[in-house]
């Protein structure tokens, strides 16, 4: 059983609780164990980095240092947490002065940021550590009857200087995983575009336009559902779906699943157990 320090994203503890719930259901089936990091704090959500760059470095050095203390990689299942924590790590690794300053403060908690733990997305762990072949062999109910629109979201791809795993222009990781689960994915322009989440409360109309365009393209391409590795994208595409479509004079609806849920479905778990019935848009 390979173990990981699991970062608890704020949104997965509040609005999208089904993400952590589904991971807990199937993790042992795939030979992995996510050890919840109860000490972790909010990463700053792509905002703290400019409100106060130094607090941003401190908070995320601490998040990573807890994983380092356990000798484990830090795994996250929210794109923005991934990008944010990785970007803090990059800053810390590139600046010995900042690292020293932060470690001077973390000392009182008996912590030290060394830079030894990787910060990884759940999707990457599934592909790189569990492996597509191993996943294929575990599938009990292949997703074959679904035509899936993969929606990567921004912060698992961009900035590539911080993420650097998938090709931001032509990403394949999510397609590969969905393929291993027996699903067929469609090619559409919005697969690497933005959901509009980060301006929902600041420029709502623009955000809803952004979301509507993505939803429209997926529906125009006759996708049966959208799958995303990010709970923030899910919140917009599912929670705000009817509002976004209505404001843009569009009709229809399309279910949106979390990556962790479709893994669970393929491994034979029910929609009820996975928490899929908590979605706003139901199939």
């Amino acid at each position, binding site marked *: 059983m390979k173990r990981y320090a699991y970062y608890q994203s704020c*949104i997965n503890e509040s609005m999208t609780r089904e993400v952590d719930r589904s991971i807990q259901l199937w993790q042992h089936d795939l030979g992995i164990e996510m050890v919840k990091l109860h000490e972790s*704090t909010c990463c700053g959500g792509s905002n703290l980095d400019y*409100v106060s760059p130094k607090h941003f470095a*401190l908070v995320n050095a601490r998040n990573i240092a807890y994983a380092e203390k356990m000798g484990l990689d830090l795994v996250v299942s929210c794109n923005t947490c991934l990008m944010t924590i990785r970007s803090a790590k990059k800053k810390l690794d590139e600046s010995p002065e900042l690292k020293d300053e932060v470690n001077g403060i973390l000392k009182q908690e008996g912590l030290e940021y060394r830079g030894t733990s990787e910060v990884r997305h759940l999707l990457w762990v599934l592909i790189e550590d569990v492996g597509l072949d191993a996943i294929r062999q575990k599938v009990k109910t292949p997703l074959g009857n679904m035509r899936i629109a993969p929606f990567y979201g921004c*912060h698992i791809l961009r900035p590539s200087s911080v993420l650097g795993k998938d090709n931001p222009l032509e990403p394949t990781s999510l397609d590969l995983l969905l393929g291993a689960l027996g699903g067929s994915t469609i090619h559409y322009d919005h697969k690497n*575009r933005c959901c*509009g989440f980060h301006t929902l*409360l600041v420029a709502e109309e623009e*955000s809803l336009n952004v979301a509507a365009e993505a939803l429209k393209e997926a529906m125009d391409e006759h996708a049966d559902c959208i799958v995303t590795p990010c709970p923030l994208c899910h919140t917009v595409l599912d929670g705000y779906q009817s509002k976004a479509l209505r404001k843009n004079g569009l009709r229809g609806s399309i279910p949106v699943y979390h990556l962790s849920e479709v893994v669970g479905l393929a491994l034979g778990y029910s929609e009820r157990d996975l928490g899929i019935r908590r979605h706003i848009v139901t199939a």
Partner: protein
Amino acid sequence: MTDSTVQHNEDKRDVTFRVHRFNPQVDSKPYHDDYTIKIEKGITVLRALNYIKEHVDPSLTLRAFCQAGICGSCAMRINNMSKLACTTQVWDELDKAREPGVIKVDPLRNLPLIKDLVVEMDPLVGKMEHYSNWIDSKMPEEQWGKKEFLVSEEEFVKYDKATDCILCASCVSECTILRANREYVSPAVLLKSYRMNVDTRDASHDLRLAELVKDHGVWDCTHCYRCQESCVKHIPIMDAIHGIREDAIERRGVKDTSGARHAEAFMDDIARKGKLVEATLPIRTNGVGWTLKNLLPMAVKMVIKRRTPPPPPLVKASKGIEKFREEFREMSGHVAKDHEKKSGE
């Protein structure tokens, strides 16, 4: 070796350019023309398009000048990505083509189309003007020409990268929010505003910043990083956008905007609980009236699905929060000292 690798290793091959065409004087809507020409390895997309214009179809309209990645005139979307035609190798694009052997060429997005591959740059220039993106010298006019206005190495480093911008508008074309609303300031303009705002010779900082924090300004950026990813000069544009925001929040106290309140809520919540208190985030960002008007119908649906974020008292603080708070406060002390040092300079 696969067939496609064999093809790509050849020094010469037939390539089809699927080029966007639109002449508003005769066409009712845009269409694409296919031009298939023999191309040698090492040829750029711009040279190929110029060849088509000279030898195949003189009516094809495009804009280009320096042919060396300096002037920024030939930005267009090649295989759906905004970039300079003059620095883009045909061979590289063949590897990315969705249809084998076919390279798609389209005009930039988010700017009005004039003809074929040429877009109107005036809206961008207009925004540069609106946000006062030039240096308004601090030096009194009577001293002009008599005295040097020196910039130290340290001061210059802050905007060195931003000065690499050649105004090609690739980032403008790729911008998510501009696509959703043409009024949005746009990444190139934010980059330039940042560059002017951190220039120690400039006297218009406050005026510019006051404009930047208004509607359709710096707070409307949705952090998608498409601008940065498409920048032909690899300028970290998001650092500039965040730089303006940091300036608005920390240094000048330009806080009375929903964007600033939203950003600061993260800081407050982390300081208090280590966790974001999502339930009250809309109210803290936009007030009660806005929240009731905009989010009430959705809140009802969320209650039914048991999706509502927990009320503030039920948001569980991170384990070890007491120690964390002390550390957070200690860092606040460091930041205060940094600011003192900076304002003393």
